[in-house]
């Protein structure tokens, strides 16, 4: 069989995207999450409440920031996740992060024009912090089962994370944020 030699192919997903955006998948790598987040914090969830607005339920999680890595987050901020329970109505969204009161997380947050602060890519922007058994901490996030091609470079965009030392995640974020500040 004649093997076709592909000298140069712009390897991009063309599911109709004019801009050759790599993904129909809206998958965010770590750099993109850092760039697009309006705030990145390590915080503890301290309270929760839900509210019915129109036909949707919003659950508000009050967080107590422990570290601020990007942006401004007040001492008692609220994060919104669609779904929850209010007025006898319950809405559930498969794949939405489930936050536990008292637990610590690293949140990649995005505040839109509405003023509501949401989590980047929902479960993509949540890293649960847990001890690593050696005195340190790990930042853990749900694994992805997909890899993508970056249309600009043709190279694989690795699925980031899974489990990484918290210090490493902090360093990656701050290094990404710092050059932007310098500019």
């Amino acid at each position: 069989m004649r093997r076709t030699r592909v000298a140069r192919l712009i390897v991009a997903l063309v599911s109709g995207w004019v801009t050759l955006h790599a993904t129909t998948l809206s998958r965010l790598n770590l750099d993109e999450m850092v760039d697009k987040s309006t705030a990145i914090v390590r915080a503890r969830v301290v309270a929760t409440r839900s509210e019915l607005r129109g036909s949707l339920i919003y659950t508000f999680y009050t967080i107590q920031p422990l570290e601020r890595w990007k942006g401004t987050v007040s001492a008692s901020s609220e994060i919104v996740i669609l779904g929850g329970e209010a007025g006898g109505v319950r809405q559930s969204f498969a794949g939405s992060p489930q936050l536990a009161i008292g637990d610590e997380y690293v949140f990649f947050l995005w505040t839109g024009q509405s003023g509501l602060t949401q989590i980047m890519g929902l479960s993509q922007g949540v890293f649960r912090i847990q001890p690593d058994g050696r005195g340190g901490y790990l930042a853990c996030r749900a694994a992805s089962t997909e890899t993508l091609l970056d249309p600009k470079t043709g190279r694989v965009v690795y699925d980031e994370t899974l489990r990484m030392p918290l210090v490493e995640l902090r360093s990656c974020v701050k290094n990404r944020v710092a050059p932007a500040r310098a500019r």
Partner: protein
Amino acid sequence: MANGRKLWLAGVALLLFPGSAFPGYYFLHYTSATGPFTPAPEKFDLTAQPDGMVRYFVAAQGPSKLAPGDSFESVLSQIRAAADIWSGIQTSALHLVFGGLSSGSAVRSTPGIDVLFDELPPGVVAMAGPTVKGDIVGSPGSPFVPITRAVLILQKDLSEQPSFSQTFFSTVVHEMGHTLGLQHSMTSGAMSTQVTRSTTRSEPLSQDDIAALSWLYPTPEFATRTGTLAGRVTMNGSGVHLASVVAISPGGLAVSALTDPDGVYRLSGLLPGQYYVYVHPLPAALQQGLGPADVVLPVGPGGSAFPPGPVFLTEFYPGTQDVLRAEVLPVAAGVVRQGIDFAVQARGALELYGVTTYSFPGKYAVKPAFLNTNGNRPFLVASGGGLTMNGAATPGLRVIPLGGSLAVPDDGVQAYPPAPDFLQVNFLFNPFSAAGPRHLIFAFDNDLYVLPAALHLVRKQPPSISSVQPFIDEKGRNLAKVIGTGFSASTQVLFDGLPAPVISFDPLDPTNQILTVIPPVGSSTHRAVVSALDPDGQDSLFVDALAPPTYIYDFGVSGSIHINPGSLPAGSEAMVEITGANTHFVQGETVVGFGTSDILVRRVWVLSPTRLLADVRVAPTAAPTVAELTVVTGFEVLSLPCALQTQPANPAGLVVDPRLLNPITNLPSVYAGGQAVLRVNIPVDSLVSLSITLNDEPAIAISISPDGILFTIPPDVGTGPAVLRVVAGSRTSLPVVVQIDPPPPIVLAVYSAPGVAVDASHPAALGQTLIVKVSGLSAPGIDVLVSQLRITVGGVDHVPAGIIPSDIDPDVQLIQFTLSSTVPAGTSVPLEVRVGDRLSSAFLIVVVPAH
């Protein structure tokens, strides 16, 4: 959470993408805590809809940002196209109707779907799902949980999601599936996530999607046209919950089901044919509290979730990982085959999973993979867990096509040189293989991963459009020439999401083929992206996406609409007249809605491009309010705020139901000179001094019974819409529009061979092809499509193979069909021909068993 009546937006599926959601098929409740388990899926109760149809409403404010050149009209056209896809499943009784643009304050008391545009964070493309009350209703054998409302949320900012793209369309189709009660599947259909989804705009649904929706909303044909395989999955004698069982045919079909807590499964909706069956585990949960692959777990009577079963090794039936040793199972229509059981073995974490395939029909990668057997790129590129390691194909990895259409040579699996973390798979094609989807098996050690429809075999390059040229023909029609390559007589042309009928095809110059089309009705300065779709699944956007051809409308002045009357009481049925200025109404294309489920549009008759009539029903419980009118024809989207005011109900009012019934056929088709049954809202014994008129012509009432008023339709009333009024004493009904059809068709003869009429000496045999000679199939000048026809013999429905006009009499046609083996034999078996709701009288034939 409060006890009592609760609304659950259960299993709203988030199109987050990557691996966050591959659940099962339905949002399930079980009626008992222990087996045997009876599933109660969440679904719309079609009997609760006034006309059996589910309405969807689109938020009037639309998205806040659009891609360059895009428009709300284009976005709306894609939403409507997605709804039409789900409505077009012949074995499903669910039909979606556009209910109009809605404001946030619109009343929604009848179950329906809201399409909203909201601010979603980056990384979230769309979200959707049903809202339900927790109550289980229905019969003991078919319980369900009624969906009260469903929501589909699209990003408010669509600046990076052009609506003409396959991505946007497949996203809307997928999310709409969730609103109808479907969870994710793993068989590469529309309800799979983008990782493995293998559908295109040309083939937007897989058999798995069709089977899934049909099971929820079955028509009688679903049971008679498809078969079922059933069995149990166990491990060490115990049932395995949420194991995924898949039936795949070498020809490309795949249908899946998940096991219940006892490990029992039922694969319904299988088209007749030969299938392999395999069972595989779902990937681990990504979020605490969810099932494997983020399935929203089924719940029992107390609301507690049933836990998933353990992870196990994938295997084919009967108990092998070698597909060459797998048994091929025949499936017959109407037959349930039990006992397809699996005894699986435990395993650790999955090593092979989530495979996506790409191909290169042009300069760019396309997903799903389409391989041209006559082309020079007989390979695909794949990504997924476990495929590569350190820049090379995982040692020992094998890729095995299912079926004999293609093969992978010994050195055919390698890392993709430009991006070694991807896998390249080279193929050899069987020169006699047919086109269509093909499945691949990825195998490593004792791990198997089956990817249904991993690639599509085609015989040519995708179509490509070089230009679109508008012109006016000799009849004064606005047409367009779509010029390009790779077209065929079966190529479909879309303007954004709307089809443009092809009226001619000129293939003579292969480099400049011409499809002449009728563009959809446009609006002033609307810009539509034009694309071509082939029946093989390919799309011109595979190669044209970066610079898609466009068609710009220039209609000059925008249209406007008016409605009369401007108010109706709650509980009424009435005709409304809508007139337009600079409008382009078209029968069969123009849709009317009021943005609220309290005002239902039953039917529309277009009388001219600027005038239409519609039958409207105002719910008895409708609160006094004003509703916005929307009239859509193609891309012409016209709104009239505060168009129709709902007034308090008139308890003494006379209300007539415009759905006349033929007392002979019991179907809603009546004709001039025939009889009809009219239903009203008041007791029949109070119908004094009754007067019925049709187009102001008096109709004779024959009798009055609890079923309604039997009357004769005046013989001089022409076919088409007729205005009906009823007066009973001092009460006068609001006028309604009724449809007067042509008389029913007449079966003249049935032949088993040319010139051989079926009779006692020449009976019809089961399985034999018959010809039915019929007159009056349609009104003069109107063609009947085969899809509109049904032939019923001995109570068994048949889909005709074709219609042949008679050479002698233009009113006579010959219909060909094959007599089903399920027809009961006899000497006086009734044969009826049905066109829509027009049913012929029974023609008796002699039927014998097959020779």
